[in-house]
């Protein structure tokens, strides 16, 4: 079964697939990686964004990517509100926030799932666009345009976010806020506002990620559950808070998965990629690009 051709193909597809995983994990890399919010509802928001894109595409024929951009501000606001709610009802009271936060966000995820079901039903949905279902020929290789879109979106988003976080004052504050809120106050930044802003950004990114999700494959209301493991693993494997690392980790995961799918028993793919994650964590417990103190 082995051939160089197939291997090359698997690697190319894997890289692109990885970019897709990276794109859907980026928001989490901010909300969880930087803000320490155990946002297990991230994939639920992602699927919600997909449905929003679906709604615009189905009813108004808006191109899914454009739709993704259109809902970005809405998701930004949604993020602001969601964080406010989380803060007011929850974070403000302190007390081992991480674990309880997980339960809290599972609750939120379930609620979102149900709302989607009530609005859209349980059937799977997908969108149509000129670039879905077609492929780009590159010699012997054919690359689906869908994945190229994912590639472009992921790289651009990662670059923009990385720049934002390292070059701007707000960005640096976002990276600091989870480490010592009181100290950040002393720098003249309001940690709550910083977090809220960051959460808004993380959620806004989901608008576009959601568009990608439904461009790459159809969605159904409970799809979020499949993405909890994937997105969290990518973020953790990268090392919390490293956006570039997120993309690299995602690509490693994508390539591993793709190679196993192509060349070995496809049914072993998840075992292999997650075993690899375990191996990486065992060697570098702080993740590939993690900072440790």
């Amino acid at each position, binding site marked *: 079964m082995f051939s160089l051709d197939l291997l090359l193909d698997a690697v190319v597809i894997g890289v692109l697939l990885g970019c897709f995983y990276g794109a859907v994990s980026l928001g989490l890399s901010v909300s969880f990686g930087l803000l320490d919010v155990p946002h297990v509802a991230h994939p639920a928001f992602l699927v919600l964004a997909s449905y929003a894109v679906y709604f615009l595409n189905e009813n108004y024929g808006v191109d899914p990517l454009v739709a993704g951009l259109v809902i970005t501000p809405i998701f930004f606001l949604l993020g602001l509100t969601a964080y406010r709610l989380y803060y007011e009802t929850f974070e403000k009271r302190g007390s081992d926030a991480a674990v309880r936060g997980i339960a809290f966000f599972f609750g939120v995820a379930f609620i979102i799932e149900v709302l989607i079901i009530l609005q859209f039903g*349980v*059937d*799977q949905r997908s969108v149509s666009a000129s670039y879905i279902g077609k492929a780009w020929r590159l010699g012997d290789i054919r690359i689906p345009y869908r994945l190229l879109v994912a590639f472009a979106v992921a790289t651009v988003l990662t670059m923009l976010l990385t720049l934002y976080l390292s070059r701007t004052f707000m960005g640096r504050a976002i990276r600091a806020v989870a480490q010592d809120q009181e100290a950040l106050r002393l720098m003249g930044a309001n940690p709550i506002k910083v977090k809220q802003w960051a959460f808004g950004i993380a959620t806004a990114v989901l608008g576009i990620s959601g568009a990608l999700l439904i461009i790459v*494959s159809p969605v159904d209301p409970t799809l979020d559950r499949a993405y909890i493991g994937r997105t969290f693993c990518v973020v953790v494997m990268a090392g919390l808070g490293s956006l570039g690392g997120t993309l690299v980790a995602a690509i490693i995961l994508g390539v591993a998965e793709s190679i196993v799918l192509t060349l070995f028993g496809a049914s072993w793919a998840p075992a292999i990629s997650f075993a690899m994650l375990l191996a990486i964590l065992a060697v570098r417990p702080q993740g590939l690009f993690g900072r440790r103190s």
Partner: protein
Amino acid sequence: APIKIGMSMPQTGGLAGGGKASLLGIEIWRDDVNAKGGLLGGRKVELVVYDDKSSASETPAIYSKLIDIDKVDLLFAPYATVPTAPIMPMVKQRGLLLIGNFSFQVNSKVGHDMWFNNAPWGPADSWATSYLDIGQKAGGKSMALLSADQEFAQNLAKTAREVATKRNLPIVFDQAYPPNTVEFSSIIRALKATKPDIVYVASYPPDSTGILRAVNEIGIGDSVKVFGGGMVGLQFGAVMENMGSLLNGVVNYNTWLPEKSMYFEGTREFFDKYTKRAVEAKIDPLGYYLAPFGYASGQLTEQAISAVGSLDQKALAKYLRENTHKTIVGPIAFSADGERKETAVLQAQFRGVVDKNIEQFRSSGKQVILFPDHLKSGELVAPFEAART
């Protein structure tokens, strides 16, 4: 007192789409019966339905509740194999009649003689047989098998392997892909590299879409005569609408299609009612796949109760086993294991489908029936690539 029929039905989780459509079919039957004045001289039919969340672990408690607390008069099984399997031993032990709902070979080990499956499956291997027949007739000399690593698809794959071995049909590719696979490009590429003639795909709804897309993007090669067979999901309205022209050429199993040969007494009326109610309930607007069989479950019960004149489970079972029953999906007769005597699974080829139009599927000719012979509505177009345009 009303006649209570109890069941669990997946209304959340992976099987919810099918479960809801199936349930609507059953509810339409209930309303029809009750409108006619009920059964056994005026007793209305009442359904007791619980959500099993598409999981096997919920159903034992639910059926115990139905039997021991709700004291229902009759039991229907939930949609699909996984939630049904755990209750088989229980109903057998208690000697209760159970009308199955699209599960696959759940009774083969248990051997309960009061089990009757509403699905058109028939003998376990008939499904693979009919598809491979079509493929081989079109000149297929080798087979590739792509299956989901999930319960139902694996059962299909197993029979396909057996049939292929029996016929000395070489299997050049045999892979099971894991649930929640996102991207099928790599797999399709690998499959294509083996240059198979017949591609048998046993897949689940989200994956079916992914596989077809990948086939369209990557190409599958000119060697392929037929493609499809066991793709679950391509029967669902939402999926079909979205896949649009990508469906063309695929030969896939089905249970009911709007071809002339498929209309029986009451079929048309049923779909009129279904269409109206499905839209309100936000479930599959077409509902060909499961809903009429849910209705048929009701019809089976109805006829048995009327003939026996009581709710005696043994007598009902005996009646069901020994007679042929008229339903909106055609006549049904059971063999000893509670499955259909003969398979009524259709193999049909998508033709001339255009994008973004769900209404097109209501007219005949979009899915040409190739099997079984007595329902046939057209001929196969092969090879696959030729059939796609």
